[in-house]
């Protein structure tokens, strides 16, 4: 028993943990000093919001085994409550500093988590997924009815700068907002990590893995799911309120709609739901896709969708599991042997990627964007999508890339199998 007086407990300082959390905090503090452009700061602010949201989602999917298609409900309703509170506060009707607004969003999220969660968590598995989809659509279609609260199509706007500056902080400049988001992000990350080690967090894992056995041990599985969802909704609400401070506008389409629910699922899954840090990677990748790639191409959602599908089909553990496999190989001194094979696979995959981008962008140019002719440029090379040559190049890339990738894939598989066989021998 922990904390029993008089018993000796040996607990070494977990250096690795302190190092990881310390360097995360340091990175969050230092990054905006290295990348000072406005674009980079916005990007990092959005990543911070998405990290909290994706981690809260992973509480359900990764740790509780609940696949939700409506998690945006808690994010969005948290955001809407926060924006109204912020507006009241700037009119002087109530007292609420901007820096504590995420708490309001979180409490609102938790409130709706209590309300909707009671219904949704009655069942697990596919039925849970369907009810969350239903609740998501329900709330979204309500947003078109209750226009006073949801602000109709234009949404609700706000202004984060009001009142007297506190220690010179007005939250006017984007960098101050970034540091606010970073601070909340770090605190939320730590709290969610700590939660996964509480009895409730452990029980959520048990209910995910074997609900029947958890019930026999004496736990009410519905209650475990419900409590998990409430806490998850709390953090989703925090993310929603931070989004309000960042953008100063909340619209129903962007915040409670199906796209937001789908987005957080993409982010968490791409990152990897099996590890705590998976969704953090996923959130960064996702925001990069959304913000950076959407500036270059209109088909960014297609690339994101294809990436997601590839992950579902071939790497259901997400980026995190791929990373952990390599870490294991490095630790057992086999990485050097498989690295050349990886390079070959990556090279041929790049050819396929180029073929895909070329095909998609040329089709797009012809079908959607041909009002001013079919001339276009990719990677700094100008050409005309209406002529045969670029199509021939695309087909060639598909064929050559496909053949090379097939060879490289087999080589990776062969070396991989050899290494696994060696591991087995070592164990025996």
């Amino acid at each position, binding site marked *: 028993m922990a904390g029993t007086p008089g018993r000796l407990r040996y607990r070494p300082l977990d250096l690795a943990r302190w190092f990881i959390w310390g360097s995360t905090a340091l990175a969050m503090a230092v990054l905006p000093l290295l990348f000072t452009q406005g674009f980079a700061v916005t990007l990092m602010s959005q990543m911070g919001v998405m990290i909290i949201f994706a981690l809260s989602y992973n509480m359900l999917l990764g740790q509780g085994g609940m696949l939700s298609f409506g998690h945006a409900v808690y994010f969005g309703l948290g955001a809407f409550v926060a924006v109204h509170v912020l507006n009241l506060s700037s009119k002087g009707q109530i007292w609420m500093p901007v820096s504590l607004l995420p708490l309001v969003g979180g409490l609102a999220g938790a409130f709706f988590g209590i309300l909707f969660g009671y219904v949704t968590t009655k069942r697990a*598995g596919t039925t849970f997924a369907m009810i969350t*989809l239903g609740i998501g659509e*329900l709330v979204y279609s309500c947003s078109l*009815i209750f226009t006073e609260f949801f602000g109709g199509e234009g949404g609700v706007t706000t202004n984060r700068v009001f009142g007297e500056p506190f220690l010179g902080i007005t939250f006017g400049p984007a960098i101050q907002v970034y540091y606010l988001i970073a601070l909340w992000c770090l605190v939320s990350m730590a709290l969610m990590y700590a939660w996964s080690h509480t009895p409730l967090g452990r029980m959520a894992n048990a209910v995910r893995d074997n609900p029947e056995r958890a019930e026999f041990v004496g736990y009410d599985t519905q209650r475990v799911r419900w409590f998990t969802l409430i806490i998850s909704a709390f953090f989703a609400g925090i993310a929603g309120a931070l989004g309000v401070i960042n953008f100063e506008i909340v619209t129903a389409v962007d915040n409670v709609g199906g796209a937001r629910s789908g987005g957080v*699922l*993409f982010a968490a899954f791409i990152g990897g739901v099996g590890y705590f840090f998976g969704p953090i990677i996923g959130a960064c990748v996702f925001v990069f896709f959304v913000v950076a790639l959407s500036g270059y191409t209109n088909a960014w959602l*297609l690339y994101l969708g294809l990436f997601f599908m590839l992950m579902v089909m071939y790497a259901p553990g997400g980026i995190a599991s791929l990373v952990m496999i390599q870490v294991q190989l490095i630790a057992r001194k086999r990485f050097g042997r498989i690295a050349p094979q990886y390079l070959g696979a990556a090279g041929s995959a790049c050819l396929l990627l180029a073929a895909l981008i070329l095909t*998609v962008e040329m089709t797009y140019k012809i079908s959607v964007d041909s009002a001013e002719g079919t001339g276009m440029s990719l990677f700094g090379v100008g050409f005309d999508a209406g002529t045969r040559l670029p199509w021939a190049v695309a087909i060639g890339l598909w064929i050559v890339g496909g053949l090379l990738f097939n060879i490289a894939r087999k080589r990776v598989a062969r070396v991989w199998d050899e290494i696994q066989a060696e591991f087995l021998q070592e164990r025996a």
Partner: protein
Amino acid sequence: MEFVAISLLNGVSYGLLLFMLSSGLTLIFSMMGVLNFAHAAFYMVGAYVAYSLGLKIGFFPALFLAPLVVGALGALVERYGLRTVHRWGHVAELLFTFGLAYIVEELVKVIWGLTAVPFKVPEVLDGPLFILYSTDFPKLRGFMMLVALLMLVAVYLLLKRTRIGLVIQAALTHPQAAEALGHNVPRVFMLVFGGGTALAGLAGVIGGVAFVTEPSMAASLGPIVFVVAVVGGMGSLVGAFLASLLIGILQTFAIALNWSLGGMLGFVGIAVDAQTPLYSLWQLQVSQVAPVLPYLLLVLMLIFRPKGLLGTRAD
């Protein structure tokens, strides 16, 4: 009376369209346990393929060919996508179809453009079929009902009266036994998935001309089809039929009614005006609430009768 009759007809024809979609979804679910999130996406592909084919070979040949094309695509998706994912379990299959819905929508945008395409009703089906009291009932609506009923009969006969239907039913309830008797169950799965998506494609051809053929047509109809499948009872064809009609009629009536709670209170002598608390809530008309009704029905159903109208399994 006129309002009731015409709304009922419209509701039934819309409900039958919903059934064309939900029947495929239900068949696939009861067979493979896969909730096909991309079902409405196949509906959309049906509409677009029929539009492109129709430009070359006319509407009616396209009406037959487009579902076949969609069904073939569905079979390919099952063979090379779903079957790969199957080993990771049901959640992965759900995620696969969920991602597929996104990809199909984006591909449609890339190929056919971001705006609606002019998929027109052929002249034969243009114009009123008959005039009820003083309202026209369009031929297209009648055609929609006819196709749906023909399809219903065809699917019923295929499942109940043919050998392949027998194998499908056997593989549905006792896959191992059917496999042991020498039937290729994975191929039956592929056929069912292809067949189900072909039905969605057929619905898409009709829905495409009846409504608008645009990239958001899948996303707007998809959730409704889910509601139908759940309310009817997962895996029950008859249940899906009843739920389709129920929701079709419910929605058609609801969007045409301007009743409100405030109005009802006024009827019994309580005046509601701008000073009443929650005035905007009291003034909400049924027609404004109409989009919420199917989801409300879904949530209520899942709370009070999770297995649906005629379903047999609750999880």
